[in-house]
């Protein structure tokens, strides 16, 4: 399985082998792949995006791995749950490791606060938590303009921003407040490579919000996002960090 180095680096000092894991916000299944690869006994990949749920399931089901002496095939250790993270369909104290890889930046503060509580609810005593995200971008970063347009379209369409880059200290304090003891912070990427494919995915996301805008502002924002993605091309800027926490046993 093709596991990003950000994921392997975030997990390499955490106990995964034989553990029940929750990937909060599965995206395209990058962390799910990493957890299964590292020997998780069970991975619950939770996402509220139907496409993401399908992509994650197909990606793992399409893998070449088979049962081994130590682990069943990855697809047999995976449960993809199409659900809202504010109401995770798992009982209390049911997972040993929770990952939120690139999750918090797509949550506004209200959702983030509720999800932080919910992650704590499903975590077993002694459970680990890994939170990987982006530090706020420097003022000079060109990609800020694209993300600003994406956020403007999202605010007009939904009343919420699409992206919020929280400082690591903010998330550290938030999860500490939810009962997690902070263990460590490391840098996953510096600079962060915003490639053409990332920028075009963000331009597409902006266009998709723009389509739901009430007046003709949407068309202007979609065009602006596409032009910015083309003009910027790619940019390496900013920092992606990894925080690790643990619940008291």
């Amino acid at each position, binding site marked *: *399985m*093709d*596991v*990003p*180095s*950000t994921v392997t*680096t975030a997990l390499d000092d955490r106990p995964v082998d034989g553990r029940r894991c929750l990937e909060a916000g599965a*995206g*395209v*299944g*990058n962390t799910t792949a990493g957890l299964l690869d590292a020997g998780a006994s069970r991975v619950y990949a939770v996402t509220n995006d139907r496409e993401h749920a399908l*992509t994650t399931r197909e*990606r793992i089901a399409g893998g070449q791995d088979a049962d081994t002496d130590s682990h069943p095939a990855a697809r047999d250790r995976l449960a993809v749950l199409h659900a809202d993270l504010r109401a995770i369909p798992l009982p209390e104290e049911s997972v040993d490791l929770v990952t939120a*890889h*690139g999750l918090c*930046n*797509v949550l506004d503060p209200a959702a983030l606060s509720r999800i932080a509580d919910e992650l704590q609810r499903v975590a077993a005593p002694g459970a680990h938590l890994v939170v990987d995200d982006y530090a706020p971008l420097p003022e000079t970063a060109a990609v800020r303009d694209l993300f600003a347009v994406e956020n403007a379209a999202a605010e007009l369409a939904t009343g919420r921003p699409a992206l919020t880059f929280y400082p690591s200290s903010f998330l550290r304090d938030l999860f500490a407040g939810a009962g997690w003891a902070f263990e460590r912070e490391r*840098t*996953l*990427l*510096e*600079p*962060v*490579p915003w*490639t*053409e*494919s*990332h920028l075009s*995915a*963000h331009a*597409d*996301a902006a266009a998709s919000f723009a389509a739901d805008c009430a007046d003709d502002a949407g068309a202007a924002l979609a065009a602006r996002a596409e032009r910015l993605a083309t003009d910027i091309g*790619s940019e*390496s800027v900013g*920092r*992606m960090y990894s925080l690790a926490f643990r619940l008291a046993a």
Partner: protein
Amino acid sequence: METRPLGTTGHDSTVMTFGTIALNWLEQEGANQMVEHVLDYGVNHFDVAPMYGDAELKLGPKLRQHREEIFLGCKTEKRSYEGAWQRLDESLDRLGVEKIDLYQVHGLEYDDELDEITADDGALTAFREAQEQGIIDHIGLTSHSRPDLIVDAIDRIDDLESLMFPLNPVVAGKDDGEHDYEAVLQRANEEDIGTLGIKAFAAGSWPDTEELPERDRPFCNWYRPVCAPDEISERFDFAASQGLTSVVSAGDPKLVTMICEAAADYDGMDEAAQRSLIEGSRHDDSPVPEQLHH
């Protein structure tokens, strides 16, 4: 320029090796200047092969003038005893020198080639005779084929002292065995075998020749190289920080000065920046669609 021990050879190679195929694209006068230019940066390890057009002939004059300053690696694509001896004699003749410091099996690709070179009438028998006669000093091998084949070669060739193989962020971002040159590097380091990295500056393949005919390519490299100074520098830093002995410069003479500058300035690369390059390349040709995150 930083130097590192090349395995058990006793030679400390500069962190940049000059890939002299670049000389093939220059007239003799330009080739002479290029060698002087590279030596001015302190580069002490040169690599050549008979298959690089006129590179041996064009390297000859300045190599003879500066023989003591240059650790010379050469190669043979021949797999048989006679073939290897013949190529070695021809290379000595074309280079105009008495001795080659490192003689390498060039471009090992298939299992049966490994059988052939290690057989009694294989190329390595010729290498060892030449070594006894003082014509070559050390034995190496180059390959951009399967990593597992290179590991087999380590197992089967006891007197192997150097390996040359690809290493760059594109390769490092691929998890499959077909691209696991990191395993080769790790094994080589365990066995104290010197390691020379190629394709450090590769950005990708050239477009199809229907789309871009070979004569219209802007660089003479086998692959499409990165070419902006900061990209060259990042790629050099990445390769040099993986644990290789030395990074071989790209084949196009237009890139050589930038690579010398990068090598002269090299002072390590932190892991977050290495991952940044891996992730940047991984997303360029990822089969997974629509990724907003890393």
